[in-house]
């Protein structure tokens, strides 16, 4: 079991200096708007992933008119204590585990897994394909060693190739031999990424479907279609047949960097035809399936961070969600809401394992 015992926040977002202790499995966080409920969840996310869930700019994570922040957390993973300290000072970021600093932050990610469900997540459905790739990649690199390395290398080669295509367009010259080399490198690093993405989805969608039916209380067929040019032909053929087009467009028009996921409800695109409620249920099913996949992989449940779920779902769905996350396969859960009574009411059957934190 993974448990967060204590966290202290210094100059993180709207916190000047604050400590929180968690002694129950489920923590409700309540307070008026702008009191820092979501920021506390984000701090927890930060110590797990070494970055904010909401923003990539450290300046936005730092309290106004200060030069940095510090997060200190005490975790308990299967009885082993872990002290995690994240500091950002004058733009320099340091992360340490049990007072030993990390050389590479990527080594920390995955040691203390967490899943966040927040109102902004609708972007996964409504936003551009990049949002969906980012979400999928963040999940897959936790499950498959080597996935991230291949992806990073692929991106670097892609930049070089696109840069070469621009050079050819402006300065002319025949660079076919060098393009061949870049193509080979893209194939070498891109094909494994494609295979992991392709093999992951079929079993994942079954879990999403199960959770969707449970939350919605009725059966509607949800599906995730993996759209990728590599389904039709091998990567080297794809690059070869796009060569002329790529030179015209001055960028690489086909490859795993153009992949997309199409979310479907009863065979129609969720982006355009699903209702708000259906989309929300689907998002929860998607995130909870993600939780399940990580739990099975790590053999212990990740932290679950639920931001403002009461505002998003109707009463019945909320109560089904609550009874699900109170169940034995779930671990530590953090949940925010503006109304203390609503939280207390929702967890009245699990009083013994429920703690309420009121923000000032």
């Amino acid at each position: 079991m993974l448990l967060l015992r204590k966290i202290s926040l210094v100059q993180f977002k709207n916190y000047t200096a604050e400590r929180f202790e968690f002694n129950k499995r489920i923590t409700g966080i309540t307070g008026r708007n702008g009191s820092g409920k979501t920021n506390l969840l984000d701090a927890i996310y930060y110590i797990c992933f070494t970055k904010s869930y909401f923003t990539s700019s450290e300046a936005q994570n730092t309290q106004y008119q200060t030069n940095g922040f510090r997060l200190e957390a005490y975790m308990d993973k299967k009885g082993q204590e872990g002290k995690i300290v994240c500091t950002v000072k004058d733009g320099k970021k340091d992360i340490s585990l049990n007072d030993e600093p990390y050389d590479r932050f990527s080594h920390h990610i995955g040691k203390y897994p967490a899943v966040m469900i927040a109102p902004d997540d609708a972007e996964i459905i409504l936003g551009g394909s990049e949002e969906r790739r980012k979400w999928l990649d963040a999940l897959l690199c936790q499950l498959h060693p080597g996935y991230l390395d291949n992806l990073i290398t692929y991106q670097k080669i892609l930049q070089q190739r696109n840069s070469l295509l621009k050079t050819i367009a402006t300065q002319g010259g025949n660079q076919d031999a060098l393009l061949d080399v870049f193509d080979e490198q893209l194939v070498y690093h891109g094909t494994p990424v494609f295979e992991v993405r392709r093999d992951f989805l079929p079993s994942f969608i079954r879990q999403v479907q199960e959770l969707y039916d449970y939350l919605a209380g009725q059966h509607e067929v949800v599906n995730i279609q993996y759209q990728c040019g590599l389904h039709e032909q091998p990567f080297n053929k794809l690059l070869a047949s796009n060569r002329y087009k790529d030179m015209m467009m001055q960028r690489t028009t086909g490859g795993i960097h153009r992949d997309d996921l199409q979310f479907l409800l009863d065979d129609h695109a969720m982006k355009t035809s699903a209702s708000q409620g259906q989309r929300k249920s689907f998002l929860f099913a998607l995130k909870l399936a993600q939780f399940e996949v990580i739990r099975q992989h790590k053999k212990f449940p990740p932290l679950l961070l639920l931001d403002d779920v009461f505002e998003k779902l109707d009463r019945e769905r909320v109560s089904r969600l609550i009874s699900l996350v109170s169940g034995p396969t779930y671990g530590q859960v953090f949940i925010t809401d503006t109304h203390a009574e609503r939280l207390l009411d929702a967890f009245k059957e699990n009083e013994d394992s429920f703690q309420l934190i009121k923000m000032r």
Partner: protein
Amino acid sequence: MIFSSALIENAVNEFARLPGIGKKTALRLVLHLLKQDPAQVKLFGDVVTRMRDQIKFCKVCHNVSDQEVCSICSSLSRNKALVCVVENIRDVMAIENTQQFNGVYHVLGGIISPIDGVGPDQLNIHTLVERVQQTGIEEIIMALSPTIEGDTTIYYLSKKLKDFPVKITTIARGIAFGGELEYADEMTLARSISNRLPLESYVQK
């Protein structure tokens, strides 16, 4: 900074253009030169000017040289059939310092990276192909950095040379000497295991 002499100011500005030298260090160096004997400073200036004016790049391998052909390429004891391809002159020096290599070199002058404006045409690649074509080179050792750009360059060169009867090898990659296994990064360790060596070639002869 305010100077009472334009001569000092000019000198400081020139020193400050050197890599790793800021204004303050430049001033320290200039003031140091000012304390020296004028003849000593003249010698310093002459040496620098002569170095830039008279330096040559070897016609064969593009290494720095005092003659048309560098001392390594003209040496009779060197094995001309074994060519080590390196990125720059510093790499030649590094390999020479090992005193383990008896072949000759080919300095590319960089590695392929279109983002930085370096394509194959900016590098000494066609002279390498000519060398392979015209002289009896038997083996080419690619001694390039183990980066993505290094790999790109190696693949490109091997494509250019694939029609010639020449053996192409690369330097070994893996655990450093004196390094502890547990501190090696995962990628290095994984690669060392997949490219493991048979024991007979491991034992130093």
